[in-house]
């Protein structure tokens, strides 16, 4: 079975949009200018990208089928994927399918049993209640519950609760019933509900059959961005179940209680929502790298590359939510969304801290129909360095575990251990290093590499609310820049407590935040200086030479 996966043909991606565009390898220019071609901006990879090429934010918000990208943005947004194209995709995927575990079959068997009315007593009986987390006890009738800034609900098309960020799903079943009624009511008219705006609240609906995702937010985010976050939640659920299994379950039994299969994953979803509220990675649709001297990173990447196995598709080394190194199988590209989901999985559980974990995981953007198997382990207890080896073979635990051992050995032999440890001690750099007095913070994303860099958030953004407020400002600028009906290239924002400037080109996106006393002219000269600095530091801040096995 594993052998099938390795047939050369099987790995070819039928959809051209999954591979990065060609013609990126133009001469690197010395001073970045607005006319900079994509692929030559600071941070652009020298040997092609590591990720699936995401040209813009719209790529991320559009439905997963490549065909949708052709349609106009108005049509595209928030619309459920066409059944035909989804079918095609699932067919394509099953052709290049990674090994699908027997899980779907188990469920099928069980559904069949339950139809025959003899479901009990399998060890599977849902027992989520045995492990009450704090949120379960939250009273949904209380004002405190209503005061949360952003609620997220997931329900099935039968109106059954699947997930609620706050409060227990049971207590909310009638609320979710109302939500489903709203969705159905408009659908009966051959229409679709996207959002309700009232009283400072935005209620955003995302329909991804067989699930409906709803957010009730009081944040300043645009509807588009909230929908984007809901999609992340949808992908998170897919990563646990696969699209194929999810659909199969609901085809068999429309009123299935999906919480049974998702038991224990609430923490992962909660964590994802929290992460999205303070990590700009999700907003940028890009990945942040751990600042590391190029020589050290190369040594790490080479060690990782050498510790390969036949079934390995991706080897990822990460620290915190920053990428240290990524080695991939030739012609296979990881989507930033998939990588974000992996980062979230790792940061949401401390159970990986010891031992070696082996878990099925679906990377929905790569292939939503099958599971990979991920070997997750920390290299050393006290060091925040996590190794993630993604394999296609469920049975390959020991082979992959040996890859880890070999990687560690190589790392030791190359003597980069110490340098790596040193770099981990300062996982963020200070904005002061740039040497622009008024500059407080910035986010710079290289579009062709799918990587971004950003300094540590420092004073005056000390408190958590302040940090979130800053991210909120970036979100606002981002949503204006990427507004589907009226996108903007340059935005200058003057606020009471800071000034911001956004600059979006075909090659990069830059958002800077600086002192409220600074002038526009000052900001523009700061941008030029900053771009020069990023160019100078790019081999430390980005991964310029991504490796393949």
């Amino acid at each position, binding site marked *: 079975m594993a052998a099938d996966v390795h047939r050369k043909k099987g790995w070819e991606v039928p959809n051209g949009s999954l591979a990065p565009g060609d013609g990126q390898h133009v001469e690197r220019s010395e001073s970045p200018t607005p006319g900079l071609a994509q692929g030559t901006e600071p941070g652009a990879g020298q040997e092609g990208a590591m990720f699936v090429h995401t040209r813009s934010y719209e790529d991320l918000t559009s439905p997963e089928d490549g065909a949708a990208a052709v349609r106009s943005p108005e049509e595209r947004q928030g619309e459920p994927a066409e059944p035909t194209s989804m079918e095609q995709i699932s067919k394509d995927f099953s052709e290049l399918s990674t090994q699908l575990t027997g899980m779907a079959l188990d469920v099928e068997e069980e559904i069949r049993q339950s139809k025959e009315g003899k479901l009990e007593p399998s060890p599977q009986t849902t*027992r989520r209640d*045995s492990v009450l987390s704090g949120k379960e006890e939250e009273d949904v009738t209380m004002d405190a519950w209503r005061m949360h800034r952003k609620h997220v609900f997931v329900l099935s098309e039968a109106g059954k609760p699947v997930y609620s960020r706050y409060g227990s799903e049971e207590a909310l079943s009638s609320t979710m019933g109302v939500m489903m009624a709203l969705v159905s009511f408009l659908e009966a008219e051959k229409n679709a509900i996207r959002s309700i705006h009232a009283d400072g609240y935005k209620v955003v609906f995302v329909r991804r059959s067989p699930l409906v995702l709803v957010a009730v937010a009081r944040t300043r985010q645009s509807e588009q961005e909230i929908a984007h976050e809901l999609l992340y939640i949808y992908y998170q659920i897919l990563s646990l179940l696969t699209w194929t299994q999810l659909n199969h379950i609901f085809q068999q039994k429309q009123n299935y209680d999906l919480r049974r299969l998702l038991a224990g994953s609430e*923490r992962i979803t909660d964590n994802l929502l929290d992460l999205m509220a303070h990590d700009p990675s999700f907003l940028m649709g890009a990945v942040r790298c751990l600042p590391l001297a190029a020589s050290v990173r190369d040594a790490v990447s080479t060690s990782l590359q050498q510790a390969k196995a036949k079934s390995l598709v991706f080897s990822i080394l990460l620290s915190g939510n920053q990428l240290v190194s990524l080695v991939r199988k030739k012609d296979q590209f990881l989507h930033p969304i998939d990588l974000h989901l992996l980062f979230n999985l790792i940061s949401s559980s401390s159970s990986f801290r010891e031992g070696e974990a082996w*878990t099925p995981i679906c990377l929905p953007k790569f292939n939503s129909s099958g599971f990979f198997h991920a070997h997750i382990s920390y290299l050393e207890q006290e060091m925040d360095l996590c190794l993630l080896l993604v394999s296609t073979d469920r049975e390959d635990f020991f082979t992959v575990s040996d890859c880890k051992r070999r990687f560690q050995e190589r790392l030791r032999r190359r003597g980069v251990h110490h340098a790596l440890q040193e770099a981990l001690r300062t996982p963020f750099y200070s904005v002061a290093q740039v040497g622009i007095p008024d500059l407080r913070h910035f986010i710079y994303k290289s579009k062709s590499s799918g990587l971004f860099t950003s300094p540590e958030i420092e004073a005056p953004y000390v408190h958590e609310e302040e940090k979130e407020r800053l991210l909120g400002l970036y979100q606002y600028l981002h949503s204006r820049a990427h507004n589907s009906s009226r996108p903007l290239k340059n935005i200058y924002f003057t606020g009471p407590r800071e000034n911001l400037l956004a600059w979006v080109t075909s090659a990069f996106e830059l958002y800077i935040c600086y002192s409220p006393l600074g002038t526009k002219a000052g900001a523009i000269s700061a941008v030029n200086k900053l771009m020069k600095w990023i160019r100078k530091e790019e081999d430390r801040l980005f991964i310029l030479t991504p490796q393949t096995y």
Partner: protein
Amino acid sequence: MSRKKAARSKGGGAAPSAALPPAAQGSGRAGTGAGAPRGSAPAAPELPRSGGAAAGRPSLSSSGEFYDLAFKVMLVGDSGVGKTCLLVRFKDGAFLAGSFISTVGIDFRNKVLTVDGVKVKLQIWDTAGQERFRSVTHAYYRDAHALLLLYDVTNKASFDNIQAWLTEIHEYAQQDVVLMLLGNKVDSAQDRVVKREDGEKLAKEYGVPFMETSAKSGLNVELAFTAIAKELKHRSMKLPNEPKFKLHDYVKKEVRGSGCCRS
């Protein structure tokens, strides 16, 4: 693991005899070679066959400790019964207090024990109790030499599910797998809903050794693993003049009750 596995990892397949360090070869070789009456897949120290992890340096565990024998032990049971806590208590002598952390997939750890002067490495698979990981855990049942089946004495459902677990074990695990039933969390006497007698009765019905444990207080935790290690060790290196090891009797003799009046 499967036939496929055996064929592929040839380095491992050929290794068992070479894998044993001199000490064990001297004492245990004759015994293992002659006395393996149990079918084609005995629980003998044939770790490297499926244990590619140790292929490079077969007698050195990942923590750098030498060992004579290696066995795979799996912890199974409903979600939240305390499998990970039991393991952490055994491995590190600590209790994971605070919030519930559910295991993702399966978690692999090693611990080397000394049983009657023989160093036994237990490769412990800590499994996730949740339904969606069932298919992964199924795949590892057949390699397990021993299974610790847990329920939570404060949770009736987890006890009721034991029968279903046993059915599953019967279906997927090896015939001669060493099995032990553990009623965990006996420190929470207030919340107990499954009586000790109920556990004993069920265990007797299925002919499985039984004990009550507490990962929090450490009660019987060490014993559960040691008993398993002893049984496996005795099975794999039957010394001619040694009396047969009886797991049931050993457990009965050594087990300690949760209250002060019983023991």
